[in-house]
């Protein structure tokens, strides 16, 4: 008997997608209503997710759907960041007039796809979730129809994503061919590590996954898509798909293929080093803040991958805490970015921040904290994220990875400092609007406080994450 109780959150979110669509069609001028309803339905989903005991360890549908500590934690993370992303961008989409009823619905279906991905314990389920989230994201990227860049972003994302999905499917089929199963647990049982075909399969799937989290050398889409998409969608891009993809990374590498660690470890190390270095160096020349943050997120994913490369529980936990802290920092950064607005125009170039500290001291302080945290300077939260990663990496004596990683933090520090320099040291510009939506203010305050005071009680997060045991 399948216990459907366990997938109540997913069921609920699917129902609310349909419900919201119908409401949207029949009720005129209900945009705000639907938007708020979406936030509420996310809240209810969150409540449903929190409802059952967090340390369950159950599988559904012939072991193809898994509910365990990792999946619950990552779903909670996804839902919370989904709520915050919607809160921060509610005013933005009104001002830029890109709101349509499809917008919140697409966000919801993308989140549904992510939840499926997070829980997947089977290649087919995983692929379904992945495509659901990506399809919604293609549309969202090109949601600003009037804007050429936005359409380009959507198209580019679609073409490249389709390519990577193709590779991924090919990898899945190879693995199926060599292990007679698509289920992670059965694959692990039938594993015959001598076959090269299996290794090829792993490589293809890793390529597909690396594409989703924009790790070098599969990052080409990220800067264009980040820059072209409406900022509200960029926030979404920068945070949520990474959580889901990282979860799949963890599950895929550590459940069926943990015994083949020798074969995939080098790939992950390479992806990690390339992303860290490339992210740090390529961001230096950027002038557009969204583009810059795209490169910075490539670098950050490199660090998260470094944690995964360690091949230990500590490594997984460090990657999970990295992504948790990373998403808070990104949320704070984008909240700041959405506050750079004058007469209903949003600004996104570095020069627009010039001398911000004179007219907007509080906003500048928050940006300062966020940027130093992104650079990984103690005692801010970003330092701890990196610290956990390097703990895990050095535990495995991977000094090369650690040294490269830390050197690229120094390089990366340069471009974060450059933004701070422009905010604090440069002559001021015209004042920006200071009437902001409550949700935007709220998410900025909460995330900044988290970043700033994380060091007082770091055990809180480590305690929760230390219960994640995959191996």
């Amino acid at each position, binding site marked *: 008997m399948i216990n459907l109780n366990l997938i109540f959150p997913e069921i609920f979110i699917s129902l609310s997608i349909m419900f919201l669509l119908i409401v949207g069609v029949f009720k005129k001028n209900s945009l705000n209503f639907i938007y708020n309803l979406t936030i509420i339905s996310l809240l209810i989903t969150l409540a449903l997710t929190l409802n059952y005991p967090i340390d369950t360890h159950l599988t559904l549908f012939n072991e193809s759907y898994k509910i365990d500590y990792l999946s619950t934690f990552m779903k909670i993370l996804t839902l919370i960041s989904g709520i915050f992303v919607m809160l921060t961008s509610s005013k933005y989409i009104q001002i830029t007039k890109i709101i349509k009823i499809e917008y919140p619905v697409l966000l919801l279906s993308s989140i549904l796809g992510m939840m499926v991905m997070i829980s997947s314990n089977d290649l087919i389920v995983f692929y379904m979730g992945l495509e659901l989230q990506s399809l919604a994201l293609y549309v969202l990227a090109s949601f600003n129809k009037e804007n050429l860049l936005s359409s380009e972003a959507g198209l580019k994302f679609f073409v490249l994503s389709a390519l990577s999905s193709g590779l991924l499917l090919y990898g899945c089929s190879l693995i199926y061919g060599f292990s007679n199963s698509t289920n992670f647990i059965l694959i692990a049982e039938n594993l015959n590590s001598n076959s090269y075909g299996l290794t090829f399969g792993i490589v293809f799937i890793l390529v597909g996954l690396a594409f989703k989290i924009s790790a070098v050398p599969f990052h080409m889409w990220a800067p264009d898509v980040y820059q072209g998409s409406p900022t509200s969608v960029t926030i979404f891009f920068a945070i949520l798909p990474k959580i889901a993809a990282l979860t799949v990374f963890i599950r895929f590498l550590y459940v069926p293929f943990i015994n083949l660690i020798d074969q995939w470890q080098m790939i992950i190390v390479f992806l990690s080093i390339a992303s860290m270095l490339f992210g740090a160096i390529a961001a230096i020349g950027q002038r557009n803040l969204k583009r810059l943050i795209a490169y910075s997120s490539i670098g950050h994913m490199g660090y998260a991958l470094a944690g995964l490369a360690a091949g230990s529980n500590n490594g997984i936990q460090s990657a999970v805490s990295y992504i948790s802290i990373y998403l808070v920092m990104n949320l704070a950064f984008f909240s700041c970015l959405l506050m750079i607005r004058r007469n209903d125009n949003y600004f996104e170039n570095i020069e627009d921040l010039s001398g911000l*500290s004179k007219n907007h*001291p509080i906003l500048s302080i928050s940006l300062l904290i966020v940027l*130093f945290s992104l650079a990984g*300077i*103690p*005692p801010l939260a970003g*330092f701890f994220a990196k*610290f956990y990663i*390097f*703990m895990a990496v*050095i*535990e495995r004596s991977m*000094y090369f990875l*650690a*040294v490269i990683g*830390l*050197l690229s*933090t*120094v390089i990366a*520090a*340069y471009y974060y*400092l450059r933004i*701070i*320099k422009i905010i*604090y*040291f440069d002559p001021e510009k015209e004042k920006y609007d200071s009437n902001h939506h409550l949700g935007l203010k709220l998410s900025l305050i909460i995330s900044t406080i988290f970043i700033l005071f994380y*060091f007082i009680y*770091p*055990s809180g997060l*480590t*305690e929760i994450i230390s219960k994640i045991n995959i191996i």
Partner: protein
Amino acid sequence: MNFPILSSLILLPTIGALFIFFSKTNKTKYQSSKYVALFVSFANFLLSLYLWFLFDTTTYEFQFVENQEWIRGFINYKVGVDGISILFIILTTLIAPLCIISVNATIKKNLKGFLVAILLMETLMIGVFCSLDLVVFYLFFEGGLIPMFLIIGIWGGEKRVYSAFKFFLYTLLGSVLMLIAIISIYWMTGTTDVTELYEIGINAKYQNLLWLAFFSSFAVKTPMWPVHTWLPDAHVEAPTAGSVLLAAILLKMGGYAFIRFSLGLFPIASDYFVPLIYFLSLVAIVYTSLVALMQEDMKKLIAYSSVAHMGFVTLGIFTITQQGIEGSIFQMISHGLVSAALFLCVGVVYERMHTRLINRYGGIVTIMPKYAIVFMIFTLGAIGLPGTSGFVGEFLILIGTFKKSFLVATIASSGIIFAAAYMLWLYRRIIFGELIHEDLKKMIDLNQSEIFILWSLAIPILFIGFYPEPIINTVEISVNNLIEMFNSNLQINLAKNN
């Protein structure tokens, strides 16, 4: 003693900073935040004196230790002081209020922010000197970058951006290697607690690499030749109060960390690398002294002289003799007072004339006699004339060095002559000579707050110059213990190898 006196010392300035940050001040009463900052830092100074009063000089154990779980099952927040660190804490708390008094018209924009940065700096600097856990130490050590970067960058001179970036990136690059070493130590020994590590000891095989990683960080901070180049830039561009903090306290972190961590944790490697340190220190002493001679900018001259003086300090530390290390600590305290005072002196004339070029001055003894007197005291202190604190430190260091190597000591002694040359020449060009620049006549002599600041530095310089006992007394047992520990470690290792 249950009252967490060290944590109070660390936290008090931060509380003051938060208070200033969140208090509303209007333009007319902007001075009020200065009084708050002054009050907080002065209270901190009194608290640190009380700490010294309670301090037991008959034991080498760490005192006032607070040990609290921080990252569960992993790292503890542990602070404590011994004879080596307590003096640096007092130096910090003494310099901070003086810096705050010196802040006036020079800081035109955003006084509140400046005070907040200075108070945060004080917190972090005290934290560096008390922390007894490597990770906690790293946190304080690195955290100092943020406020200092802002102090240089926002309130600095023309080339402030370049200097701030250089300062930040140099220091960060040095420190990340130390972070790797700290984590490696954790996985080797299972702890980052310094006192535990003293007992366990670190495998001799890895000591050299770990020592180098720590060295890369401390050498940049000290700064040692050839990674000293950030210092002149940072000093020249920083506002007076920033230069004072940099010279008086930030530079001492490197020297202090050499004693506490390099000698304490890696005795075998420290012994191995002594020639390297001797070489770098001698180059620093001779070469930067010569560079200082040629400077036309007052702040740059003092900055280079700082590098030379810190060369003495590293030399003294790595003689690993009682006199050498005590001399180094003494020299650091003395240099903290003297260089702070010299930068304040430069600040005094800079505020009046808005130039730091030496040849724009001359003959101001007739206009500013009070200034000429205090400046003389500090000049002599920097040279190390007997009767000033500078003499005791350099003398002890040279005794220690003579014990180890005659040649090194001889070369190092030449540094004292160079110091006399550039300092006295600087003094002559500014204070004496003919008054050729007409605009100098408009300068007014020291005002009351300047007199207060400068004399409150001059008195300790003369006092410990004549009567060094309180300082030597405080450090003696701790240094003695450190050296005993060092030698016994070396002997054990020697026995193992045979």
